[in-house]
């Protein structure tokens, strides 16, 4: 097909569009009156909910940390800090994501805006990285002085094996949850869910575009 034909066909398509499309007047009125729900990103309500749950969880951890400090249970205190810090960072990333979503410049150059949108999606990976970091502390929060002096040696063998495994896994995941690994099987197994699927779609799409 020559260039002339291409343009001619496009003009014919333009005529077809003219026949088919008239903007619905009622819809136009509803939009201008603000009656249509803003639906640009369906993730946002989920993120607001997660943010509220995250903040409540941080409050609970703060209370647990204060109690642990007051009763001088340093094992519990260390675990609360180890769990609380990654959760705090995750909540902050969530908040930043929400700010990015609301500040997306839809009238900006297409490439720039799409990169911005991709950045929003991929920042979710950082949330996962942070949350994995807390896992070793879930195997230590119940330690106590009494346990240290009374528990049998085999308890500590099992305990140390579990904690070491969780610490190595958390470190490995922190280092390896990266865009470059998004096609690997373990990555897809971890990120198997609605929101995570969207991240993968965004990454795959960006590679195609």
């Amino acid at each position, binding site marked *: *097909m020559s260039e002339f034909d291409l343009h001619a066909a496009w003009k014919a*398509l333009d005529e077809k569009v003219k026949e088919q499309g008239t903007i619905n007047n009622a819809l136009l009125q509803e939009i201008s009156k603000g009656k249509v729900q803003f639906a640009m990103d369906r993730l946002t309500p989920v993120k607001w909910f997660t943010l509220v749950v995250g903040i409540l969880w941080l409050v609970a951890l703060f209370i647990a940390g204060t109690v642990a400090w007051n009763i001088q249970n340093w094992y519990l205190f260390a675990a609360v800090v180890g769990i609380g810090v990654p959760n705090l960072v995750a909540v902050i990333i969530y908040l930043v994501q929400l700010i990015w979503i609301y500040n997306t410049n839809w*009238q900006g150059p*297409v490439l720039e805006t799409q990169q911005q949108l991709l950045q929003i999606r991929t920042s979710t990976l950082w949330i996962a990285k942070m949350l994995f970091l807390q896992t070793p502390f879930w195997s230590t929060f119940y330690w106590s002085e009494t346990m240290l002096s009374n528990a049998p040696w085999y308890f500590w063998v099992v305990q140390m094996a579990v904690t070491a495994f969780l610490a190595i896994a958390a470190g490995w995941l922190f280092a390896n949850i990266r865009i470059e690994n998004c096609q690997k099987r373990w990555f897809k197994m971890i990120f198997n869910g609605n929101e995570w699927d969207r991240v993968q779609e965004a990454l795959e799409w960006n590679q195609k575009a």
Partner: protein
Amino acid sequence: MSTAPLIEKEQQFREILDQYQRLLYKVAGMYTGTLQDREDLIQEIMIQVWLSMERYDPQYARSTWLYRIALNVSISWARKHSNQQYISENEFPERLTENASPQLEALEQAIRALAPMDRAIILLYLDELPQAEIAQILGMSLSNVSTRVHRIKAQLETLIQKQLQKKSHE
């Protein structure tokens, strides 16, 4: 916002949509597969146009501004719906070129087969926008636009030929 500016905004909004509705239909049509999706996408573009009106920068042509919004919303839509499955053969695709010539149908199908950003480039090129304006809309360098237009045109022509051959064998 008091009533007077709102009425003025409403009027401007209507004028923009009256003037550029074909642009919206064409862009939305290239990124959706069904009539329902096209209507939904046009609605999302319209909402975004309404929300962006106060931030319109007059240094850009109105059409440049509108193309940017329409393409950004449409590409984002295409990304979100990239894994969408259509229920039956009859449902996909409800084409813009329904009952049109085979050449026109082939063109539409070939454009749909392109990557989303390539689709945006060829759409602007076929709308006869100067390459400098295409570069401004997409945020690319002029040389990059020029190279990509050549490559996409060649790809499009191959795809159209394939489509036409397929149709002639049916």
